[in-house]
């Protein structure tokens, strides 16, 4: 079966510190991968998507970056966090087959920047 995991689940970081969130997918190959951020009052905002290893597209300008070093691994990073980076970060992948198009989300990572 297809599963997705992301970590850490919760973290508190000072302004200016680096960030690394990881996401891995199992049970599928060559998935489309996504990073979304959920901040209060803004719904789910698409940050990055990837259609293959090393292929990253950004939907919004920011001080975050993403990388896909392996087919089923997606990493969200920052060199220096801002207060505005606080939020609930969700990794997701798109399924294939009869229900193609459905997004499966990971458990989420709640980031608080102080």
């Amino acid at each position, binding site marked *: 079966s297809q599963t997705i995991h992301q970590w850490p689940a919760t973290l508190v970081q000072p302004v200016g510190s680096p960030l690394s969130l990881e996401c891995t997918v199992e049970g599928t190959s060559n998935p*489309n991968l*996504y990073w*979304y951020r959920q901040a209060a*009052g*803004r*719904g*789910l*905002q*698409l940050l990055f*998507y990837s*259609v293959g290893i090393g292929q990253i*597209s950004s*939907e919004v300008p920011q001080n975050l970056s993403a990388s896909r070093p392996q087919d089923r691994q997606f990493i969200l990073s920052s060199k220096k966090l801002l207060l505005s980076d606080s939020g609930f970060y*969700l990794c997701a992948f*798109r399924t294939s087959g009869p*229900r193609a*198009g*459905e*997004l*499966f*989300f*990971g*458990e*989420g990572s709640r980031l608080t920047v102080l």
Partner: protein
Amino acid sequence: QQPVQSPQAVILREGEDAVINCSSSKALYSVHWYRQKHGEAPVFLMILLKGGEQKGHEKISASFNEKKQQSSLYLTASQLSYSGTYFCGTVRLGGSQGNLIFGKGTKLSVKP
């Protein structure tokens, strides 16, 4: 590009019905609906494709009007378990990789 959802919030008694609307200013290929419980990840409910609709979940159904670029989610005889925030996600015709762009959500609270 973000679809607009209405209402922003709704409070129901168990057994009542509700409708959540989603509209886009762009031509759409598909509309997705998700429900999110507090502190959890969103869970897929259903997808409506251009040229048809798909009923995916219990007493929850949806419609998709391609010409008006609108979708509505219908919750019938609501149950306590229906509480949560509902998001519509839209895929534009000709959009990048079929990426989903979500609305701000509609918070639904079902009371006993």
